[in-house]
């Protein structure tokens, strides 16, 4: 009983409760939007978005398929947040990584068997890392705000990839990149046998494992390693980090590189999924990169939290497709998802609320803790 109580009072529980709370409020506001746009079918549509991801095994698989790139861009944003930098450049890193993967997937046919796929993933990570490295270096050496340079890198990345696709791996009929070779496709790892309806399997593949493993590695990196110690120190208190001799420039550069590599890997996992998706030559920034921001927010920058947040947002996306059965245009779906995510952003507010309404623990005054609140009160 006491352990349970302590668990309920723990920081992690508070974070979890506030995220759930934020989601519930977001869903309710989403329902209001539905009621306004189409009152007759609002509840049907709401049910679709709530349960759509669970209607059959194929949809469950689709949730995991959509979650894969989201988890990675979420990790990318969350990781850079830990070092105190806002990586809004996940979109550029994502598409650059995607291009690198597809290029390898189409051209490097000399690579045998699974090596083709693995190489494509690694090259994608390197490309993404390069795209994260540039803002990192600009920040460290020239003190350019990472947000500004990342936004610029998004556009440079998008147009450059459009240019490169048309000149190297262009399918001019479809105005998109050529399909990748079968060797480069990420193996299904039996998932297509589990997540299917009849003979129609979902697009889920081994990428989801890679995403989850990436999440666990990032978690360990942040929480258990010396580098993680330095990285969080830089994010929490740059002055004290400097005092302790941490090279914050180096830490920021490396962190941005890792963040870029994660986004790049996300791009690779999406375009190597074998779902027939190719890089379209359009002047639109990859939305997966931006969706990483709310995923990181909802997961409260915690790598494990981000895995679940990514799955949750993917779940809403799949549910949103089902809403179209009830005459909701896709835009409304996007609005609902945005509203829910938007409220997710209020988690800090909810956290504060939950904290202030928790019954005060009325222990005896004891020497050790008397001081606590006094100093917080502005001593």
């Amino acid at each position: 009983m006491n352990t349970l109580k302590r668990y309920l009072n723990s920081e992690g529980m508070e974070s979890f409760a506030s995220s759930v709370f934020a989601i519930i409020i977001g869903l309710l506001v989403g329902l209001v939007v539905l009621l306004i746009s189409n009152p007759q079918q609002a509840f049907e549509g709401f049910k679709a978005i709530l349960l759509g991801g669970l209607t059959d095994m194929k949809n469950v698989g689709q949730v995991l398929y959509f979650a894969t790139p989201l988890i990675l861009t979420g990790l990318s944003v969350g990781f850079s947040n830990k070092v105190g930098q806002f990586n809004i450049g996940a979109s550029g890193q994502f598409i650059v990584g995607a291009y690198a993967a597809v290029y390898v997937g189409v051209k490097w046919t000399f690579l045998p068997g699974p090596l083709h796929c693995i190489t494509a993933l690694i090259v994608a990570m390197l490309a993404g890392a390069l795209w994260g490295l540039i803002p990192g270096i600009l920040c460290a050496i020239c003190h350019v705000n990472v947000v500004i340079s990342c936004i610029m890198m998004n556009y440079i990345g998008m147009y450059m990839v459009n240019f490169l696709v048309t000149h190297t791996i262009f399918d001019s009929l479809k105005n998109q990149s050529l399909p990748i070779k079968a060797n480069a496709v990420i193996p299904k790892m039996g998932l297509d046998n589990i997540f299917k309806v009849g003979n129609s399997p979902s697009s889920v593949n081994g990428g989801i494992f890679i995403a989850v493993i990436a999440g666990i590695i990032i978690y360990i990196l942040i929480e258990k390693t010396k580098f993680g110690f330095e990285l969080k120190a830089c994010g929490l208190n740059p002055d004290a980090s400097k005092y302790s001799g941490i090279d914050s420039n180096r830490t920021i550069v490396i962190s941005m590189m890792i963040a870029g590599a994660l986004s790049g890997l996300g791009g690779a996992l999406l375009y190597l999924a074998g779902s027939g998706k190719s890089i379209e030559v359009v002047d639109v920034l990859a939305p997966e990169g931006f969706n990483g921001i709310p995923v990181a927010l909802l997961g409260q920058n915690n790598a494990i939290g981000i895995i679940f947040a990514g799955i949750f947002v993917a779940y809403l996306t799949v549910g949103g497709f089902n809403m179209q059965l009830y005459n909701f245009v896709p835009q409304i779906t996007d609005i609902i998802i945005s509203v829910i995510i938007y409220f997710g952003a209020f988690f800090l507010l909810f956290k504060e609320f939950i904290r202030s309404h928790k019954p005060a623990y009325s222990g005896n005054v004891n020497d050790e803790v008397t001081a606590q609140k006094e100093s917080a009160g502005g001593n």
Partner: protein
Amino acid sequence: MDYVIEMCNITKKFPGIIANDDVTLQVKKGEIHAILGENGAGKSTLMSVLFGMYQPDGGKIKIGGREVEINDPNDANHLGIGMVHQHFKLVQNFTVLENIILGVEPTNKGFIKRDDARARVLKLSEKYGLKIDPDALIEDITVGMQQRVEILKMLYRNNEILIFDEPTAVLTPQEIEELMKIMKGLVSEGKSILFITHKLNEIKAVADRCTVLRKGKCVGTVNVADVTKEELSEMMVGRRVDLVVDKKDVKPGNVIFDVQGLTVKNKASSKNAVNNVSFNVHRNEIVCIAGVDGNGQSELVYALTGLIPANKGKIELNGKDITNASIRKRTLSGIGHIPEDRQRYGLILDYDLGYNLVLQSYFSQHFTSHGMLKYNDIYNYADELIDKFDIRTGQGAKTMVRSMSGGNQQKAIIAREIDRDPDLLIAVQPTRGLDVGAIEYIHKRLIDERDEGKGILLVSFELDEVMNLSDRILVMYEGNIVADLNPKDTTVQELGLYMAGSKRGNVA
């Protein structure tokens, strides 16, 4: 007997602690009432309750015999309660006059009636002997004058009850004397003063009565005239405290730290923040840099520790040139640094105590292997330090440092820096804002380190500390070292003159 303030049986709980437990405070009209207590004893909480920043969980407040509810500082203001905070709340690039009338500007159709305001401010300043220049900008005036502006702010609002939160922390001895006079003047005009402090001398000098708090409880209220300083400190700490530091004479050893011609440019102005400063520190020696805050001490220490680059000069530790060494390298070659701003530089408040205790050594092989932190070793080491240095916390090494009291935060830094066993310990204001018990402890620690053959460079604004601890005193004024004194042959008054720049000595 009529009391102007009665706080009866105030109880204020926070999760896990009771900051005020059944505290009763009664202040008579026209008295200076001191509130004495260690850090974390509940003084600030009690004043915050009175000033409307916290709502008490139990008890009631009476102002002038009438029971009142104070929901926010505005309510407090309406009831005639004003407060001078420890860190002044002034707009730096406004004039003195503008700061005083800020928020209660007399207006005519939306235009400020400056002349009326000025006349009133000048009248108040004359009446209470608070010398100010109404048109000077806050950033240009001395700390002492800034404090007078804060006092005038209260008077301008017709406050009858004035709370002074550790007002002397930033003043020179001369300014402190001045403030004491002003406080006495205020009460003779019928104001009542609540005076929060750690300093027993000041209580003896001005206060009529004194309420002592300890661990959230009220220990008692005494007439200051009836008790000695020793009795007061015993009430506060709960045990006998040595007010005078016991220090053996030790002969200084070799030069361990040598600074030649160090110059640090000031970003904002053409004047050097530190101007061609040379000095050295021997083994077994505490060298103290005295001076009024803002005369280049911070920049000097930043340059010595590598936080900012030195523009000119040479720094040698143990004969090795470290002028351009990285911070980490300086740390490893034997400099310990207890920084001035413990929350900004010394600690990562959102790390737990264990992590903070290894902030300067997490990378060593004791705590890291193959890039992974060794949790058990870190926390075992932290437990050891917590024990050895008597750091008091709620949850041991897992306590978030943010939730610890200032004194224990400082102890954590001191534990970390001393335990690394540096040859030179640079301690800046190591006892700032701490209570007698903690100060005694820190002073003892510093002297122990000195006796063990370490060199100590102490920067302090507290003259008692300077006089008690140091083997040699360097006085800094406007970026220069203007005096090199032996504490045995000098007086506090003389030191004050050097600090104010009105006297210069021969510096080697």
